[in-house]
């Protein structure tokens, strides 16, 4: 109990209220992030509607195996994250820290696979520019969106890996008590980044692919 009291911060009157506040804050941030990605999804919807054939041709070139493996990695990481949050609430230190570390590793594995996929894409010349291999020119719009969407997602995930890593470390070093309400914020953010991939994956790898 004294451990829990240590994580109470100004200006909150009690820990439950603080946990609720963290939750309100992170959800507001996620609503904001949804609009951030929403602008991209709008661009994708507009261009896909305008150029369905170019998008079909361009979409067939994405490396679906990498995308699928990465989907699996992120979905698994959300499971370990959920266990970590539960363990933290029950003050089971070891489980919480191990699960956070696993989450971080799964996220890092995603980034490594994404890097391999990027090098494959670049080897195939799929970065928009003068000697782009596909025709018509609108295929470059798909690939421009691909690089921005996956790039912005990867930056979010890299930040997530960093935050989860630091958080696991401060729990391990007992800088923060294991029941710290901040874990709710960390986990919600992680699930959000995961969810973005669940949407990006079909948009970029599956739609209209025979």
């Amino acid at each position, binding site marked *: 109990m004294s451990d829990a009291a240590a994580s109470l911060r100004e*200006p909150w009157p009690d820990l439950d209220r603080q946990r609720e506040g963290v939750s*309100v804050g992170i959800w507001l941030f996620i609503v904001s992030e949804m609009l951030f990605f929403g602008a991209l999804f*709008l661009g994708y919807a507009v*261009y896909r509607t305008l150029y369905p054939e170019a998008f079909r041709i361009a979409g067939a070139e994405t490396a679906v195996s990498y995308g699928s493996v990465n989907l699996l990695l992120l979905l698994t990481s959300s499971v370990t994250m959920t266990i970590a949050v539960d363990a933290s609430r029950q003050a089971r230190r070891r489980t919480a820290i191990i699960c956070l570390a696993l989450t971080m590793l799964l996220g890092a594995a995603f980034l490594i696979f994404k890097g391999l996929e990027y090098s494959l894409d670049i080897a195939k010349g799929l970065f928009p520019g003068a000697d782009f291999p596909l025709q018509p020119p609108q295929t*470059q719009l798909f690939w*421009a969106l691909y690089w*921005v969407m996956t790039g912005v997602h990867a930056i979010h995930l890299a930040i997530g890996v960093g935050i989860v890593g630091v958080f696991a470390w401060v729990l391990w070093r007992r800088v923060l008590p294991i029941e710290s309400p901040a874990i709710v914020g960390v986990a919600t953010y992680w699930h959000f980044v995961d969810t973005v991939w669940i949407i990006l994956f079909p948009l970029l790898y599956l739609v209209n692919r025979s």
Partner: protein
Amino acid sequence: MTDTAIADATVEAQPASYLAAGHTLLSWLTTTDHKRIAILYAISITFFFFIGGIAIALVRLELMTPQGLILTSDAYNRLFSLHGIIMVWFFLVPSIPATMGNFLLPLMIGAHDVAFPRLNLLSWYLYVFGAAFTVYALISGGVDTGWTFYTPLSTNYATGYVIAAAAGVFVVGFSSIATGINFIATAHMLRAPGMTWFRLPLFVWAMYTVSMVMVLATPVLAMSLLLVIAERAFGLPIFDAARGGDPVLFQHLFWFYSHPAVYIMILPAMGVVSEVIPCFARRTIFGYAFMVYALIAIAVIGFMVWGHHMFVAGQSPLANLVFSFLSFIVAVPSAIKVFNWTATLHRGQITFEAPMLYALGFVGLFTIGGLTGLFLASVPIDIHATDTYFVIAHFHFVMVGGTVSAYMAGLHFWWPKVTGRMYSEAWARFAAITTFLGFNATFMPQFVMGWNGMPRRYHYYPDVFQAWHVMSSVGALILAVAYVLPLIYFGWSMIYGRRAGANPWNATGLEWQTSSPPAKENFDHIPRIDAGPYAYDESDHPPAAGDRTLVRSQGETA
């Protein structure tokens, strides 16, 4: 403990003020006290206000003659772009929320601080980081896209430091989002006992609604600028028409933020004026509930009118019709507010202290800005007036006549609370009147010449417009004097001003019940509220240094 009022407690004990909580530079740069962060913001935005002001002063000087005076056309383009970028994102958007909002929101709802004090400090550092990009763009040669960064100019043709400038705006956007999240969470979670939603001062409501707009609109701007950067830096052809991209898509994304951004700038101003007018009319605000609904309505409808910036950009006639209609609709809640301020004045015991002069100036100028907005909401008239000085004059009436006047009103109203000292009332009144006159002299001629066909952003112009341009430039000089004056008398006040006391205006808000300047913790005890925010009556006029305690607090038993 008994029913001891906060005011009594502070008079007896006088806990050290937030200003005394540390005197080193480091104590300021690492503070998480919302009041100190407000001061950090105030210093930063004042700096940028004068940078943006100098840029436009040079532009106005240049426009004294049809062929220009001192600038090359390239420098001219860079100066007005710089003026727009700095004034919108580094002054107007953060102006009232980040300074007065930060300082007052916890005080007005009876909290010790905002919900996330460290996030609050982070937001200031994000502002500074974004500002650093902008200053870099400025000193390395500037940017010539206008504040709107329209594609394909910004992506393919502009020669300036577009990436640095866009990155600056991108980063500063996240400082807005951080502030918005903080304010919403604070308003939801940290209201004092008895502070129900409909007992909140209208300034708090304004902060709440503006925060919603910040959180929902700013990310779309961030993404549209990110896409411009991606296209310019890496050649990703998102808006490149040669490869099927749609430049008008950029305009949609940009205005989806930037029209609500107009409400980001005006809602806080409405909040300030709603505090100032009841105090100096000694009357409760007329139609409190409708004032709240109007704020919410403006915030919501404000999201649905962005298309009126694209009447000439090739939008479908149906879309034009719908956006035109919605733009007329958003005027209704704005009009409700103007009528309610006027009705508050009716039979009031009005005095004309400096904050009141600025607030009354706001009401008049905002009304003109709003009514000319209706001209532009009408498609045929907008086609005539698009990209003319009429548009420039219209939005300056709202943003400068409206927001800056309200910012000055708030600054003068809460200055005694922030610093604990009074300023020279005579000089302040003089500055307020000069602002009003200088503002009208600057922008009224722009309506006329815009209506007669003077396009915005042009360096050279036909001789027939010279008389109007000279009038406008002289007005700008008067306005410049009016804006420099407060720097002087506020500076004087910090050292020589007489002590203000807790409540120099005899105002009713919770922030006036604590000492001036407030203690680091704001309140000894979290107060208990059992009345609405504007319980003014005529008898307590004129304002005296009394300590009428309209809000009782209940001490907690130790």
